[in-house]
């Protein structure tokens, strides 16, 4: 069942076509990876899909609804959330508060009740706190529940961002290089976490350079090069595709 359909997505920056007529579909509950050399347009594509920037042309249909060009906070309402490659953690809060922010749209957030400290707000806060604690357990960060985000190690922060994004109760989760900077043990944990998320009914879209993780976790892979789709398919097909090997994997295969 198609959950996300992207057609003809295009974005230029000052004459350079960063993303050039990209088409693909993502099935519900799949783990869908986007790979490609640096400068291929992966980050731009990701930022387009997550509402950070608006496309010049093309369409994005999420579960039948046209969400093209919607800004990030409105995409969150439609069940789309993300993590960030360069860590956009709220360092001015505790880890738990970070995750609680994710639940924002489901809280009692009308101004006057919050100003007056009404019981409905206190209940909402209690529920949000409990939910956030559950999520921290889910991603394996229970020991950091009361920690300041600024005091946490890098690997934990990557998982914190995922917990935070999960707090939005997404239907589709965009992970931006979740394994970047992680050691093999941490990457293995990330692998397991991603599978678990998909098994629990959330579609996962990831941009990644760590090919071990990509081959292991992906149901489908999209290869981008120069802003265009080079190939699409399952792991075996992609690995065997001569163009992909040439453009992206070739060097790595030779290095090994």
């Amino acid at each position, binding site marked *: 069942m198609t959950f996300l359909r992207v057609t003809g997505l295009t974005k230029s920056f*000052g004459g350079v076509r960063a993303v050039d007529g990209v088409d693909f579909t993502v099935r519900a509950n799949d783990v869908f990876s986007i790979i490609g050399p640096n400068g291929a347009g992966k*980050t731009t594509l990701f930022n387009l899909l997550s509402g950070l920037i608006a496309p010049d042309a093309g369409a994005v249909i999420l579960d039948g609804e046209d969400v093209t060009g919607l800004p990030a906070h409105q995409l969150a309402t439609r069940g789309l959330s993300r993590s960030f490659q360069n860590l956009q953690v709220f360092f001015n809060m505790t880890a738990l508060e970070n995750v609680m922010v994710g639940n924002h749209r489901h809280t009692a957030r009308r101004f006057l009740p919050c100003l007056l400290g009404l019981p409905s707000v206190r209940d909402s806060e209690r529920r949000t706190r409990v939910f956030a604690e559950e999520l921290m357990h889910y991603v394996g960060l229970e020991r950091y529940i009361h920690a300041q985000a600024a005091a946490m190690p890098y690997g934990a922060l990557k998982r914190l961002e995922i917990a935070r994004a999960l707090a939005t109760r997404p239907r589709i989760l965009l992970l931006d290089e979740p394994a970047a900077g992680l050691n093999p043990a941490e990457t293995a944990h990330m692998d397991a976490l991603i599978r678990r998320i998909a098994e629990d009914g959330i579609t996962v879209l990831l941009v990644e350079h760590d090919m071990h993780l990509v081959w292991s976790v992906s149901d489908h892979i999209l290869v981008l090069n120069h802003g265009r789709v080079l190939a699409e398919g399952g792991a075996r097909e992609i690995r065997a595709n001569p163009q992909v090997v040439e453009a992206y994997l070739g060097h790595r295969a030779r290095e090994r």
Partner: protein
Amino acid sequence: MSGVLSEFLQFLFSGLTVGAIYGLIGLGFAVIYNASHVINFAQGEFVMIGGMATVFLMAAGLPMPLAVVLAIAGAALVGWLLARIGIETARGAGVVGLIIITIGASILLRGLAQVVWDRNFHPLPPISGDAPIHVFGATLLPQSLWIGAALIAIMAALRFFFDHTRTGKAMQAAAIDPLAAQLMGIDIRRLVRLSFVLSAALGALAGVLVAPITMTYANVGVMLGLKGFAAAIVGGLGNPLGAIAGGLVVGIAEAMTAGYLSSAWKDVVAFVIILFVLLFLPNGLFGRAEVHRA
């Protein structure tokens, strides 16, 4: 007909004169911003120090040329101290923190000026007397010509500095990409200090040049600083020559408003310009647009 023309010329000369001063001050903003991405709220105080220090050194008996040189050197020293104490030690203060630090410096310097010197208005003698020159029925002060000449000389000197000296080119590199510049061995901290020294000297020079026309006093830097900032952003923050052009624009707009509307609203012009540029033309007239790398 000639009455209208001479009136217009009068306002134009006045606008160009004061605009050149705004341009020099704006230049100071641009140089510091280029090196450090800091907007130095204390820029106006360098102007004040130039004028006030000269006044008091002359009162102490020094001949004017020596007083001017010492005043400019003194301002340069203050600039160096501000960079060293205010900017370098404020690691991780964030943008808001840096703003507060330079505002604090501005207030501190003004307070010190009031206590060390005084709160009165002081004139300086003009460079070559004040016999007005008549042009098409309008009068032009000789000091205005000196200001114009100084501006041109400084523009030429800066062009040479930025394009033909190692330090100047290093500053340009640092403005474009500080990280890359550092990786190539350029000492950013030294450049930041240098930018403050240079801006302070430029500001002090402006103060010395304008004091014969408008007098100097402890708080003269407030409005001049803000108008210099208007000049800098009209020209596109970070564009030194744009700042000078911006200064002329602001100066002329102000003179025309004072002349044709009312001098009461003169000061509002610069702020309206600031708001207009910030809201509608954030890169000014000549600035480079910031590239957002997604």
